[in-house]
């Protein structure tokens, strides 16, 4: 791990990106905009799966998914830039690995939903309560995204030996 971090930090790309002083603040700002889109779009969908706002069909709320996915894409790209510029800050942080774990959980949860329950959801009309399986998927997703946010924000402060 040490070698990998040293190698990455010493690459041409890493050192040149590090020299662009405006890049880090810009990516941070985009990372915050992206998280708002992701938490907003995915959160509404999750709350609907949990039975909130049931006058609206789940199918209709899928219209917000592209915005949530765009938010995730923005944060993936800016996140990769953070890692390339400052690999040591992340590669040795248990909080960062916890963050990745929750992203994987949220992703697998969404895949499970799409592949097994996704077709059932489209038959669910307005005013219909959701089955327990949907409520669980929604709750896991909502919890995971806030856990991702928590780990990301606490990363500079947690597990640093203090």
């Amino acid at each position, binding site marked *: 791990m040490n070698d990998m971090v040293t190698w990455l930090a010493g690459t041409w790309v890493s050192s040149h990106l590090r020299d662009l002083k405006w890049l880090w603040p810009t990516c941070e700002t985009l990372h915050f905009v992206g998280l708002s889109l992701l938490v907003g779009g995915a959160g509404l969908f999750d709350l609907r799966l949990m039975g909130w706002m049931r006058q609206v069909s789940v199918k209709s709320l899928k219209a*917000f998914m592209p915005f949530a996915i765009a938010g995730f894409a923005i944060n993936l790209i800016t996140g990769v830039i953070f890692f390339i510029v400052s690999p040591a800050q992340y590669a040795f942080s248990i909080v960062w690995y916890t963050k990745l774990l929750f992203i994987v959980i949220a992703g697998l949860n969404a895949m499970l939903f799409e592949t097994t329950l996704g077709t059932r959801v489209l038959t669910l009309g307005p005013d219909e309560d959701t089955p327990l399986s949907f409520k669980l998927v929604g709750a896991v997703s909502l919890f995971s995204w806030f856990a991702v946010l928590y780990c990301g*924000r606490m990363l500079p402060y947690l597990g640093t030996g203090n």
Partner: protein
Amino acid sequence: MAFFTWLQHTPFSMWIVGSESVWAYPTILTAHTVGLAILVGAATLIDLRILGVASDVPVSQFERLYRFVWIGFYINLVSGLLLFASEAADKAGQPIFLVKLALVFAALIVTVYMRSEAFRGVIAAAPTKRARMMAMSSLTLWAGAITAGRLMAYFKNGTAP
């Protein structure tokens, strides 16, 4: 200014910035980010619906999202006041902080006023042009507030990053 200096040096303010505890500055800062996600997330959903996303859903269904706008706002008002208290004298004179306050205030006014435009009285089948203008302004102002807030960490005492 004397008041801000006093505020920054109260034992509580000194604890927020000086403590090694993760429950001090880091947790308050994280609460501020959670509040931001809830506030801007909910406001963005309302704005997007007014701009035509999920147009098969009646606009009126989205009025209940204002609950989350206010939950997020109050989380950030409280956490923001605590963060301010911990650096009152430094922040009060920081131009980017005043820009952020102005943007948050403007964004909130537009988002609140949009409620009476798009959700009150006779609700038209499609949002008015005025409501759509407000939704665009709301999106822009919240993004601006996020930008100014993030840049506060870089423009310390008026210096560029």
